[in-house]
């Protein structure tokens, strides 16, 4: 047999070897590049869609400006002690109660407890940071005295104040007179009530990622609007008449 007879199979073997050694790795790389490109294009589409959705949700907020105002007033961006004092005072007055005392102070921040066992995310294997409550609080305490049904109304008014609130404690007792050196109930129908309420506010959210829902919770706004409207509203704090020629005189 001549060597020429082997030429074709030899060349085929060489061609296959070259293809396998040099072309196949590049084909695999191209396959990977195409997969990556499909993923990147999908990401790009998602981002573009998000931009459109943000515009739509923003339009919804703008169209319901009153709802946005109610939300921003109910959970304000900063401390509103003046509104708290005004609303508590109004709640007592509206219930025909005598407001004997009130205190308003920033709530003590909770000290984060250090867990002996760190929580590790099963997905990333990294320690999970503790969730921080975004609500900052102002504690208010109010003492009122009056009849039972008025105190009941006062408590209802307090809960429906148009500022984010949580009643921490309530103590209702008969009014006791200790002036004569001996404890004595002043009047059977007159009670004293001490209420501790936490009012909340939330600083503006800093956007660090694109995670957001594509809808606005209109249901919560509707319920909130209905809930706070069940109570008579105070007139709102205005600065009052300004300007004095002598600051050391009453008038």
């Amino acid at each position: 047999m001549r060597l020429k007879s082997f030429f074709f199979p030899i060349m085929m073997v060489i061609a296959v070897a070259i293809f396998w050694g040099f072309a196949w790795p590049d084909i695999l790389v191209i396959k990977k590049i195409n997969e990556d490109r499909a993923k990147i294009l999908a990401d790009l589409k998602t981002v573009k869609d998000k931009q459109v959705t943000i515009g739509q949700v923003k339009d919804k907020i703008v169209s319901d400006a009153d709802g946005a105002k109610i939300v921003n007033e109910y959970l304000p961006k900063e401390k509103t002690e003046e509104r708290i004092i005004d609303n508590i005072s109004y709640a007592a007055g509206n219930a025909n109660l005598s407001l004997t005392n009130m205190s308003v102070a920033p709530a003590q921040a909770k000290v984060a407890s250090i867990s002996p066992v760190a929580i590790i995310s099963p997905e990333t294997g990294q320690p999970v940071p503790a969730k921080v409550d975004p609500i900052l609080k102002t504690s208010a305490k109010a003492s009122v005295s009056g009849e039972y049904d008025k105190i009941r109304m006062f408590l209802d008014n307090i809960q429906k104040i148009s500022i984010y609130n949580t009643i921490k404690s309530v103590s209702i007792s008969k009014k006791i007179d200790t002036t004569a050196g001996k404890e004595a109930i002043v009047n059977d129908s007159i009670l004293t009530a001490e209420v501790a309420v936490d009012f909340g506010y939330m600083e503006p959210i800093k956007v660090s990622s694109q995670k957001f829902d594509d809808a606005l919770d209109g249901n919560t706004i509707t319920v909130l609007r209905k809930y706070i409207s069940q109570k008579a509203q105070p007139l709102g704090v205005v600065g009052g008449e300004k300007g004095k020629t002598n600051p050391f005189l009453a008038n």
Partner: protein
Amino acid sequence: MTTINLHQNKQEESAAFSIKNAGGLLFSIGIVVLVLLGIVGLKYYVPKAQAINENLTRDVAAENVKLVGLKDLEQVVDMQARTAEIRKNLEIVNGEVSRPAMTKILDMVGLELNKGVVVTVLKYEADKLTISFETIGFGDVARQIFNFKSSKNFDQVNLTSVARKETAVVATVEMMIKKTDVLATK
């Protein structure tokens, strides 16, 4: 005499054989050349395709940065976070506020009290009620505690003190409120 034809058509045979072999040779070389051209093409295409992907990745990153920096996004996320916190605080379920209402709690206590029982102190803190009350006799205290224990509104009823004072028997009871029965809007 037998003649033997020793003439061999050597030239014709060799010509036919070389054409045949040359065709096979060209075909074989052609395959190798095609493979080599293909490799050259791939070597040219791969960096180009990678560069396109890198550009697209940069575009996505730029769009994301643009998105994060959007004032509209900040406003949307802020509003969504506020409504979520309000929903949590008011415990809104099925369009109704379901956090415990103080009036409802007071009404529940009133409903469970026997005649002749007078509450002197009522304290509420974190779903726990502490009630001090006066009665004429110990039997009334027992009946009142039974009422609290059999109430569908209260749980973990615990008598902390009972004693006869000057004019009445004074008892103090602690109990937890069953939250499901305390809807604010009802």
